[in-house]
């Protein structure tokens, strides 16, 4: 039984196919990077996997459980950090994590202990009882990561989890993910940041315009595309534009095409 399995996973919004026939299996203990340009269908895939959206066609299985048919059972196995950073801001971190603990039927004392330790390790222990309305993006992200881990899930879906985090916390999170994978957790990691994916992921899946265009280890993708880096391989697989000409055009647009002409240059 695979940790995660997508069979012909498809999502259509009105006339737009956001995700088209994605087939993917991920074994336990693997960190799988899920890459793609803006609007490629990464977040839509994840939302179907965690039960936030219903697939138009196909199925998403979590440890063999169909998310659409037995959502509660599947969701018990999942931890999710959403890209939106949505949480109830008018609660304190302690209240919010207690709510999450209740939703997963955690022992209240266990949940409270983990809450204190998470917030302490993430350096926001002094904000435990403050409303999150006043939190920075990074502080909220730390609470969201804590909420994704508090019930000790076997599978983690992370959508741009480093968003807003400072360099030290980002480093801690990257090492934490490696450690959790070594302990058998499966991690599905969505990101635009290629160097992080390159550093921590065992496997990289690239999606473009709703379809998987490449799947393999980083070195395999480099060989496949005859490129020296993951960045070049990614560009080769997903970009149809000439980067140099785009850069020149943008610079000309900013400066009006002439060095030093920065006002009224559009005439």
């Amino acid at each position, binding site marked *: 039984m695979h940790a995660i399995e997508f069979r012909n996973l498809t999502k259509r919004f009105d006339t737009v196919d956001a995700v088209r026939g994605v087939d993917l299996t991920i074994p336990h203990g693997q960190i799988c990077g899920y890459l793609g340009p803006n609007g490629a269908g990464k977040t839509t895939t994840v939302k179907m996997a965690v039960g936030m959206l219903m697939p138009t066609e196909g199925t998403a299985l979590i440890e063999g459980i169909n998310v659409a048919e037995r959502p509660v059972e599947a969701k018990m196995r999942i931890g999710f950090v959403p890209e939106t950073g949505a949480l109830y801001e008018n609660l304190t971190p302690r209240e919010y994590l207690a709510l999450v603990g209740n939703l997963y*039927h*955690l022992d209240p004392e266990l949940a409270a202990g983990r809450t204190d330790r998470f917030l302490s390790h993430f350096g926001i222990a002094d904000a435990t009882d403050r409303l999150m309305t006043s939190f920075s993006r990074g502080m909220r992200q730390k609470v969201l990561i804590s909420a994704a881990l508090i019930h000790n899930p076997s599978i983690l879906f992370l959508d741009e989890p480093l968003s807003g985090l400072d360099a030290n916390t980002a480093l801690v999170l990257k090492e934490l993910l490696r450690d959790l994978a070594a302990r058998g957790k499966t991690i599905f990691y969505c990101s635009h940041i290629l160097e992080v994916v390159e550093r921590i992921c065992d496997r990289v899946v690239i999606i473009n315009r709703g379809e998987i265009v490449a799947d393999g280890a980083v070195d395999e993708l480099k060989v496949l595309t005859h490129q020296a880096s993951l960045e070049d391989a990614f560009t080769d697989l997903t970009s149809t534009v000439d980067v140099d000409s785009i850069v020149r055009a943008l610079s000309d647009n900013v400066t009006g095409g002439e060095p030093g002409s920065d006002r009224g240059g559009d005439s």
Partner: protein
Amino acid sequence: MSDVRTEPAEHGVDMRQLRALIAAGIRLDMRSARRRGRTRLGMPPMVSMLVTYLIIGSFLAISLWKTSDPFTFALLTLSAAMFMTAVTVIMEYSSVVVNPDDHDILSHRPVSSRTYFWAKIANLFFYVGSTALALSLPASIAIGLRFGGGVPLAISYALLAIVGCVSAAAVVVLIYSTAIRTFDSQRFSSAITYVHSAATLVLTFGYVLVPRMLMREGVALEIPQGRWVWFVPPAWYAGTVELAAGNPGTHNVIFLLMALGSAGAVITLALSLISLDYSRRIAELAATSPNIASDRRGSRVSTRLGLIGRALCRTDEERAGYDLMGRYMHRDRKLRMRIYPAFGLPLAVYLFGLVTRSFADPFGPRPVEEGFPIQELLGFYCVFITLFFATAMTQSDQWKASWIFHAAPVRDRVAIIVGARKLVIWRYILPFFAALFVLLSLVIPPVSAAVYLILTLLLSLLTFSLLSLASPYLPLSQSVEKTRQARQLGLVMLLGVAMGALVAIKETIRDAPLPGMIAVVLLALLAVLSEVALRKRLKVRLAREEFAG
């Protein structure tokens, strides 16, 4: 998985999750909002809203103290309470009934649809029940004292008021639920604002105007068996109150059955329609909002006046405020949903006047028998529109984008507000009055219609300036919070003053045209001066304003 005590229920209601969600919901309702960049625990917004409603309820109970019988008293107070509850639910619909944020935060958690549904219902009942109690508590005390029923009658009245208000809220839920199930997502996105306005129209007609008509015809003061009574839900509750007051007529027993039966039916139906799946549909609608920029045109009058308004913008900042407000009014469905219902109110009054032939030349000979003051009510709701604009135009889900006004080298931030206000006036208020002039000219002499509407327009502009002082923020720069808009209903008191001025000037014109016209000119001058004062006040206010994100 070993950390989990028991598995949550897949299909039924999970009591532990339910308790946690209800507690969190109530906590969120009661929490104070963040203001101007710092967390400040002042009076919780819901408490402040309840205090406002308590004051309105007291005002209502005192003003109806002299009513001759419990039926009439209950009919009028319950109509007002049910109407205000329904309007509150309409105004706060996205946060009270279905909050798309719930979908983002909860839908990946192991919560069954039924658990979520019951948590939402409990929160809705808490919200509506509190509102109903605040509105009807003074009336319940008054009815107990005034008609000799004592505590039992007061308690009966309060319970009936809560049931009636919850039913009114359930009607709103039903209207929206039916709309979302009837239309596909694309058509629903376009239709929802009009559904919203239609709901307001129906409620205004049913809950406010028909009881007044009953009063006028004397039906309600005598035996409540006129045919209108059987179609007016507040009358069923009022009949039940009369039954509790010791008048056991057959009609009152039927009223009791109709009140409880209809309440049971609409609440049961509404309960069957709220679920997390419903919330998901709302969220998907938000995510796939169709591009309406190119396919929607305003009316010709509205567009032309809009172009004149933009031409009248004197600076780039004013034009920026004008364009921003215009595009959001055009594309932001939630913003339109907060404002458009206001137009349903005067339209309901107009239809009512048409049906009952209540319109009379406001400047013609004074009628021998004082009739129903339909023009005044029309004028009141025209002025009322500005309340919706003044409060809603400062709020947006994307309020954090207002950082641009703080970070960009804007010389005059007041001009941005002025530009947004010009958009509202030229693109919405003036076209609305133009349309109303055409409609009113069908029933009263055009010259009288013109003078009356000019008078009402001047009062509206004056009120709009004063209301903007109460909400002195950059356009779309405040978060959309539960109760924020409903709390502003307290400003209705200010509209009462405008109403008084409208009647006084109208009567002056009727009796002595020259002094009356001088009063109109003075009013115009006052409207201009209030705009100048508003700008000065805003300048001081905005100098202290910091970005709150």
